């Protein structure tokens, strides 16, 4: 670091010091993970998230005149450290923490009950408990955009469209190659339901964690001769699967990954073998969006950007961080419109999260149209039912190859409600009556 950069950093420290809270500030805790096995994801998502918060402060002076502040706490992607961070940060700022985004499923489960007592929302964008989409039972959990279950139905629809219609799925064979963990097994019931509905045969093959050993699985896949392979992978499992697919000659453009298997970090290690590989996503890659351009202009040109490597601005993970920022800030804005332009408590922000309405026009205003799809939440639906997009790796970058593919809520929603009702019965929770909610 040059002398000038150091001085600038110190200057920034005085300006942005998280300890120096004043009235009129809205606090967002950042439970990031920048070390450990998932650091590639953590640095990207939280880098984009923080950049977006800083953009809102630099460009608009905060939300409704209320400046946004944040404080980071390193979780190392470990649930116990995340719980510690939650307790440390929940009371910071003039009105407490607005909401928590752990970008990890473990803490969402661990803090499910505490967040209700503390009245602080848990936002899990694209991961976490699928049945928490039922806001009647889970008032403080927001699995925004798509849950794993919803995303999985979009994946089958995408495969159907590639085959030329959902009726063409009949008699086809799909292999579900999954990480043998709680995370990997989560979509098994929804896949089985769809196999029955559309008449394709499903072969589920587990890969023991961490997944760097897949020869036996791919030999089995070669024997099975499936039409499609769904890759529900994680970390090292993804590039390994792509390489093995190349070795047994399975076409990569018939492999569809979950969004944890669809970032630059998942395909670059596989080299040329990854060309043509397809992955589902919450957001496309690219820096052409106005908000990202403004971040480059206002933050990176003046050395205030959060990413160590500015080349990663616009990558999949980074843009997912922007999506986090947009949804968090929008929830605060919606809540401010109701409760007034002042620092809001977690309970008030919760109202905002429940009344998100991101239309194309609104997304255009924010400069993120195309980066995330239109969505709308309600008391009943904490997910927002955002559609999914599919991108293909061309060896250098991810290209969007599909329209927005809607999820199959007719299939998912009854399962969500059933699971949520079971949880409510176990815990003795009386579900809210949404017709009484404002």
């Amino acid at each position, binding site marked *: 670091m040059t002398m000038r950069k150091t001085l600038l950093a110190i200057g920034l420290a*005085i300006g942005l010091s998280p300890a120096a809270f004043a009235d009129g500030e809205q606090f967002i805790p950042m439970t990031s993970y920048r070390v450990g096995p998932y650091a590639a994801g953590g640095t990207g998502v939280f880098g984009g998230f923080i950049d977006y918060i800083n953009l809102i402060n630099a460009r608009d002076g905060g939300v409704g005149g209320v400046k946004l502040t944040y404080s980071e706490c390193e979780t190392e992607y470990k*649930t116990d*450290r995340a719980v510690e961070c939650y307790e440390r940060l929940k009371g910071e700022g003039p009105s407490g923490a607005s909401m928590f985004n752990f970008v990890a499923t473990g803490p969402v489960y661990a803090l499910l009950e505490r967040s209700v007592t503390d009245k602080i929302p848990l936002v899990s964008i694209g991961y976490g408990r699928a049945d928490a989409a039922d806001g009647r039972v889970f008032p403080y959990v927001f699995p925004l955009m798509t849950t794993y279950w919803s995303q999985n139905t979009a994946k089958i629809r995408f495969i159907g469209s590639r085959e030329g219609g959902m009726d063409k799925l009949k008699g086809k064979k799909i292999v579900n190659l999954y990480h043998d963990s709680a995370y990997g097994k989560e979509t098994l019931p929804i896949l089985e339901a769809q196999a029955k509905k559309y008449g394709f045969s499903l072969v589920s093959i587990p890969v023991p964690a961490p997944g760097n050993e897949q020869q036996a699985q791919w030999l089995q896949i070669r024997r099975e001769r499936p039409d499609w392979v769904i890759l529900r992978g994680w970390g090292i499992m993804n590039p390994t699967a792509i390489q093995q697919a190349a070795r047994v000659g399975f076409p990569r453009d018939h492999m569809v990954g979950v969004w944890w298997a669809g970032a630059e970090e998942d395909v670059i290690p596989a080299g040329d073998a990854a060309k043509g590989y397809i992955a589902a996503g919450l957001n496309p890659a690219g820096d052409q969006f106005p908000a990202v351009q403004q971040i480059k202009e206002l933050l990176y040109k003046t050395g205030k950007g959060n990413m160590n490597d500015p080349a990663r601005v616009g990558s999949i993970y980074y843009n997912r961080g922007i999506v986090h920022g947009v949804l968090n800030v929008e929830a605060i804005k919606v809540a401010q419109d109701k409760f007034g332009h002042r620092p809001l408590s977690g309970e008030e922000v919760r109202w905002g999260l429940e009344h998100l309405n991101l239309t194309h026009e609104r997304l255009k205003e924010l400069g993120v149209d195309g980066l995330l799809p239109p969505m709308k939440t309600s008391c009943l639906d904490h997910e927002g039912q955002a559609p999914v997009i599919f991108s293909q790796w061309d060896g250098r970058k991810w290209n969007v190859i599909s329209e927005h593919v809607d999820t199959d809520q007719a299939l998912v929603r009854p399962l969500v409600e059933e699971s949520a009702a079971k949880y409510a019965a176990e815990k003795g929770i009386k579900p809210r009556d949404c017709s009484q909610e404002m």
Partner: protein
Amino acid sequence: MIYRESGQFKTSYRADQAIFPIPQDRYALFALLAFAFIAVPLGANDYWLGSILIPFLILSLAALGLNILTGYCGQLSLGSAAFMAVGAYAAYNFQLRLPELPLLLDFLLAGLVAAAVGIVFGVPSLRIKGFYLAVATLAAQFFIEWALTKFGWFSNHSASGVISPQPMTILGYTLTTQADKYLLVLGIVSVLALLAKNLVRSATGRAWMAVRDMDVAAEVIGIRILHTKLLAFAVSSFYCGVAGALWAFAYLGTVDAQAFDLNRSFQILFMVIIGGVGSILGSFLGAAFIVLLPILLNLLGHLFGGAVRQDVLSNLELITFGALIIFFLIVEPHGLARLWQITKEKLRLWPFPH
């Protein structure tokens, strides 16, 4: 001066064999317990109780369990976290399927189930020793983690495999606040630590140490190796099992196999090594070092808040932590407990050393 023992005469075997023969030690321990049981729950806030003290105490218990096996009986194990997982899942399933069981009995049974599993995985210790045994106990770690995610029965067929445990109720009173949970954990840890301290002073403990120091010689003087080693595995796994149940019920609030992965086993082993192999106090010191130091470093890092980039800071924390481990191991290879022992020796002579 402080530790002057002149004038303290022991006139009976009973006094000579007391658990803490020096009154200063005894009073200090009573004061510490009184402080922990009365002053801490009154004075500390939820953050300290829930995020610092409860995990510290629970992992101390797990380290204590491993220390019995590794430190006293000389059997290296890398399966501690797996036995914790067994305890956590057993406690959950007992509560689920036999809800009329009282909570404390439930934890006791969870410990016993872990002990039974521990005995099974302890059987290879009769043939293999040292590092080879460590590799054999790795099998326990992988097998148990696999079995708990593979068979849905253990997690009551939960889709995600992460389950929330039942609320903790003792005699009709539901433990909800962090202070309640802290007192429960502290109570269990104190009782089990006292038991462990007495156990290692007893014939059983001496048999363990004899096996540790030279098992052939121990066998020659009439110690049953099979019995002794398996007992060590059972007791150790019992402690780990109870710690696992507490970790799930009193700290995390989820029963999740991933909370008990290989890294946790390493963490517990490091606590034993840093704290002091073959020392009850060392288990607590080691747990304090491994659990609390990273949090302290993270908090200290925030004093620089912004002057250093966050990603650099996060890595610096790990580097500092690693450097401190190396520093302490060089300064005192026998662990923090040994440092305390040396200090005590010096205090006994101070201010007039020979």
